[in-house]
């Protein structure tokens, strides 16, 4: 018997509630003190099309999904045919008893079939077929002998708004399916889940973690245009705007979004725009406006596969070099590329501090896998008391009151950072412009001033470089292979490294989380100190490898790249590693 180490997969058509059932189940597991990692796979359409939601559950914290699945909840026949492949020997499939299944392939793989009269139970015990998913969840809990009360508590919370009757009916359905499954199938199934004694953890994805960080960091203005997978940040902010005093604006387009954020940033409010690559493309011009006028603004970009519309609901890491070079001309920018849900939260907090401290645009670069995958986190992993607001050289009313000379918005300073006043004080009235300007902000075409202003602006990156977190080394200090990665690839790669190291110090992993200013010295040294370096990235060109060569001259020839829209998994990485050998 294997306890607390398995993966579920719920599959069905778009519109069948695969995601909401999955998320509910994930919460029920977290409420039992277990750790989960959950990812979803869905098409860019509202109905039909095969979707699935996969939950890995474990006693320890886990960083990615795995290919191997132990229990499939099939809401459609398609689910069975598509996912049998992933089932481990001894794995099982729960499906509606009405469906006919050809058992041949299943037999060969030693797979258990758990037909449950889901629709019938939904109708009999709940009075409506929509409760089929509830039945399926009950059945799943039954087969793995998990405590039904955790499922019940989630049902209560999820249906709270729909009233007692709905709750009651769902509880009945879940209970009936639970009993049925436990009675008929639990004995045949060797994978089990047991609540453990641990505080209930948050079940949260990268986007929500980022939003939370941004909110705590004093972000007060969010302008955006919906674009998967950036949308959920906008929606979370809109939902909580009233409560938290945050203004959100669903704008007419992404250009308006970033321009509004820049206007708000200029006026002194912490502002941001959540988007995806295509929306960011429309912001390229205004990015330079923020650069030139030294306006703080945060851009959150969750990548999806391009080019162009590409795969709207899938994952990729194909925008890295675009982010670093977007917009005409040259100006300082900071790019953070969080790798975990925790780091998304941290990036939310840090981005606004950096934007104000360095008076420049800060890009937080995430991706669909990180944006949408759920993980369990302890409450104290978001320690709000640690959040320190740093507005940099920001003039208070008192400071302005004490200004004796005409205010120089762009005073030449050693650090390149000029003390910033915002509009509204009689002693610091100034005008600025996207044209090259002098210290006061007035247009000038003087060549000498130009050189000084360019130097001043770019100089800000020197101090910023010192604020960047160096790349993290995971695993033994010395190893046969050093992997390098960024972003969400960290999770599966870390798990792959753990597997490799089960017998010896075979691998370690260098992860770049703060991407620009680029940590060239530490990356270069680590490469030089490594026996064998392999880059692992979710794109075609090996963009981080290219960037590393650009910044350090080091060539990384071995590359494990994936660009089919699907996330890495530990198994996939190990398989590719093997193929390469």
């Amino acid at each position, binding site marked *: 018997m294997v306890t607390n180490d398995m993966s579920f997969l719920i599959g069905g058509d778009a519109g069948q509630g695969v995601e909401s059932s999955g998320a509910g189940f994930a*919460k029920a597991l*977290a*409420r039992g003190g277990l750790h989960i990692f959950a990812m979803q796979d869905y098409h860019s359409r509202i109905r039909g099309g095969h979707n699935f939601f996969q939950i890995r559950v474990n006693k320890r914290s886990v960083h990615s999904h795995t290919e191997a699945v132990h229990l499939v909840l099939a809401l459609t026949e398609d689910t069975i045919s598509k996912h049998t492949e992933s089932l481990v020997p001894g794995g099982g499939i729960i499906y509606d008893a009405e469906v006919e299944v050809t058992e041949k392939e299943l037999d060969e793989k030693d797979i258990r079939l758990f037909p449950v009269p889901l629709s019938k139970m939904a109708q009999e015990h709940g009075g409506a077929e929509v409760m089929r998913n509830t039945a399926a969840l009950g059945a799943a809990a039954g087969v793995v002998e998990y405590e039904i009360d955790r499922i019940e508590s989630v049902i209560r919370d999820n249906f709270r708004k729909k009233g007692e009757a709905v709750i009651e009916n769902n509880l009945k359905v879940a209970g009936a399916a639970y009993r049925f499954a436990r009675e008929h199938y639990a004995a045949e199934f060797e994978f089990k889940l047991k609540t453990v004694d641990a505080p*209930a*953890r*948050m*079940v*949260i994805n990268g986007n*929500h973690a980022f939003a*939370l960080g941004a*909110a*705590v960091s*004093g972000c*007060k*203005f969010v302008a955006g245009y919906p674009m998967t997978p950036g949308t959920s940040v906008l929606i979370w902010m809109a939902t*909580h705007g*009233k*409560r*938290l*005093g945050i*203004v959100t*604006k669903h704008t*007419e*387009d992404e250009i*308006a979004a970033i*321009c*509004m954020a*820049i*206007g*708000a*940033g*200029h*006026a*002194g*409010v*912490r502002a941001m725009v959540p988007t995806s690559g295509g929306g960011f493309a429309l912001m390229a*011009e*205004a990015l330079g*406006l923020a650069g030139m006028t030294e306006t703080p603004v945060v851009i959150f970009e969750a990548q999806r596969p391009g080019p162009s519309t590409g795969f709207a609901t899938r994952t990729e890491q194909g925008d890295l070099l675009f982010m670093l070079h977007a917009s005409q001309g040259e100006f300082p920018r900071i790019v953070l590329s969080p790798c975990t849900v925790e780091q998304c939260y941290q990036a939310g907090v840090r981005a606004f501090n950096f934007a104000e401290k360095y008076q420049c645009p800060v890009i937080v670069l995430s991706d669909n896998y990180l944006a949408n995958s759920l993980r369990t986190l302890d*409450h104290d992993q*978001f320690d*709000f*008391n640690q*959040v320190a*607001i740093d507005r940099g050289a920001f003039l208070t009313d008192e400071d302005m009151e004490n200004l004796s000379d005409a205010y120089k918005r762009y005073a030449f300073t050693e650090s390149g950072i000029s003390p910033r006043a*915002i*509009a*509204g*004080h*009689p002693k*610091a*009235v*100034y*005008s600025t*412009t*996207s*044209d090259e300007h002098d210290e006061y*902000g*007035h*247009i000038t075409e003087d060549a000498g001033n130009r050189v000084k202003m360019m130097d001043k602006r770019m100089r800000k990156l020197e101090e910023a470089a010192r604020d960047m977190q160096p790349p993290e080394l995971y695993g033994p200090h010395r190893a046969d292979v050093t992997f390098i990665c960024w972003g969400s690839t960290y999770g599966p790669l870390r798990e792959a490294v753990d597997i490799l190291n089960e017998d010896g110090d075979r691998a370690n992993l260098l992860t770049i989380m703060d991407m620009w200013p680029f940590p060239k010295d530490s990356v270069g040294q680590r490469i030089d100190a490594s026996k064998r370096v392999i880059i692992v990235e979710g794109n075609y060109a090996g963009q981080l490898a290219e960037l590393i060569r650009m910044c350090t001259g080091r060539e990384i020839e071995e590359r494990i790249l994936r660009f089919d829209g699907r996330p890495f998994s530990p198994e996939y990485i190990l398989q590719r590693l093997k193929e390469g050998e």
Partner: protein
Amino acid sequence: MSEMKDFLSPVRPTWCPGCGNHGIWNALKMALADLDLSPHEVLLVSGIGCGSKLPDYTRANGYQSLHGRTVPVATGAKLANHALTVIAVHGDGDGYGMGMGHFVHAARRNIDLVDIHQDNQIYGLTKGQYSPTSDHGFLSKTSPEGAIETAVRPLATALAAGATFVSRGFALDPKHLSRVIQKAIQHKGYALVDILQPCVTFNKVNTYDWYKERVYKVEDEDDYDPTNRERAFRIACEWGDRIPTGVVYQVEGVPSYEDQIPALEAGPLVKQPLQRSMEEYEALKEEFV
């Protein structure tokens, strides 16, 4: 009392001698002084173009943004600090060409902005291409056989979008223009001020004389009624022998955008504390459990 000269910046205008922008600039300063506003209470947001250099020449908070993006930048600033009098000021290419989408959306949003268009029916700063308001047949560097499109009718477009204040002024009549701008500033909500602005260098058709022969003041008409939208639409479509100026349409009492945002009830965003109490944030975690 503030005075016109309070709004003088150390930088002198570089507009061509005779350019209509001088008149607009004076009218604007006059309006601000007459309303007794101080430079620090005003934010001028412009785009890129000849007219968009106005903030550089004016002592007030100023932000020259991007060509065509004047209105969203101004909107963001207003939402961040609605205590400021935010005035957008930009050319016809900027506002009605590149910025057409933002124009219509701002109008229907009824955000409390004054939206001044220096409408010279030409691209000035890029040296004489036809603009969205150039008349059909207008000859220019990019329309050597004559402009094919029907010109934008800014007032009609604003009306169709649901604007609550729609007006026009003439750069050669700064007194009247100043009154129009004053009304626009006093109006709560989006206020369009289209300004006929002769470009003496590149527009040799729509000259001072051309305009002078055609403009009239709507308030001088016997049956003037700025609250009648259908009538306003008819007037707004007038262009040719007679060109209306003055406040063509105004409806008061419609709540402005920023007045309807719950988060702004506590006052301008920029004045609100940066963070809430930690308990409030702590409670958010429970949503994820």
